[in-house]
């Protein structure tokens, strides 16, 4: 089954290249539209404060070995003290923050807008491809695939004897969809490319951020074993200087 079909040059001119160009342009358009539509949210001072406290606690945890034991302990008490420690959140308050985040209309609108701006261009383009470009062989994939992929890749083509490598334009659309992600991340500058999968994962874990991470930080801080690394530095400095002198 290795006969080489000869395909019309017009297919290349009017299907492959326009489809790729259209997808690139739609991606760029979507990026700029989402940039324009991003509503500016006035940051809530309480949330910002909590975020900064978390950053400080994390720094303390990371660099704990560079400060003397006593000052580390006093800092730790400052953070996790039962009465007025910064990281200690009473149970009732924790639930509250969560509920508030979900019923906040602004945030819900933002999430909806972001989701929609991802889904609508994809759906429209897919419908357009199906309507115009169905029923003929569009491209040949350079590597062989098994027969199981036939139904997936050759959707508009009704001949069952054609080699599985010859695919319809629907599969060309999907190939473009995945392959252009890399291109977008190069031309649109970091990360603002088609990271729809990342966005969806982010949406899920968004509401819990402040209250749970405070307790998480507090636990992490309690666990840290302090081991002061600085006394060793004198020996190291001595060794290095000796090597320099001798």
């Amino acid at each position, binding site marked *: 089954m290795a006969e*080489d*079909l*000869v*395909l*019309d*040059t017009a*297919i*290349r001119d009017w299907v*492959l290249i326009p489809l*790729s160009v259209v997808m690139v342009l739609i991606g760029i358009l979507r990026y700029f539209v989402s940039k324009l539509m991003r509503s500016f949210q006035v940051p809530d001072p309480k949330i910002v404060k909590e975020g900064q406290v978390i950053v400080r606690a994390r720094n303390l945890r990371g*660099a704990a*070995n560079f400060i003397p034991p006593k000052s580390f302990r006093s800092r730790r008490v400052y953070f996790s003290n039962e009465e007025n420690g910064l990281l200690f959140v009473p149970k009732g308050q924790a639930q509250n923050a969560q509920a508030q985040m979900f019923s906040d209309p602004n945030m819900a609108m933002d999430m909806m807008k972001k989701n929609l701006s991802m889904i609508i261009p994809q759906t429209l383009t897919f419908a357009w491809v199906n309507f115009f470009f169905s029923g003929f062989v569009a*491209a*040949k*994939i*350079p*590597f*062989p695939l098994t027969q199981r992929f036939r139904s997936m890749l050759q959707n508009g083509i009704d001949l069952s004897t054609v080699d599985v490598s010859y695919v319809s334009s629907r599969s*060309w659309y999907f*190939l*473009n969809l*995945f*392959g*252009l*992600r*890399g*291109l977008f*991340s*190069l031309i649109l500058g*970091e990360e603002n490319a088609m990271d729809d999968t990342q966005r969806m994962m982010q949406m899920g874990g968004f509401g819990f951020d402040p209250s749970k991470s405070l307790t998480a930080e507090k636990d992490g801080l309690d666990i840290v074993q302090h081991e002061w*690394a600085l006394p*060793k*530095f004198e020996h*190291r400095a001595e060794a290095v200087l000796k090597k320099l002198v001798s």
Partner: protein
Amino acid sequence: MAGQGDSSSSEKKSKEVMNDVSTFRAENLQNNMKVVYYSRTFLSIIGGAIAGILGLTGFMGFILYFIVMAITSIGLIAKAKFSLHSYFDCWNRIILDGFLGGLMSFVLFWTLAYDIVHIF
């Protein structure tokens, strides 16, 4: 492409102080990872176009992909002047990181170039 030349020249030193407890500045490490990612993506696109124009099919094309990835790794390691530990925290990051991510772009441009040149 502007990214290739001057992004690899901005790899920064990650380690601040040479000590047993090796520390890394997170933002520099992230920047280095980004450089690795961009280099791999760019080279996988170019590699795909090369594979298509040369008319490679099947296995040969994937072998070319691995060769291009290996050349990327060697190039990045050479740029880091072979002292990998002052820029990255472990070997895996520079060798295995964007491996599969570049595969889709590679296949897309491979198919595109192959079809344009050979079938039509």
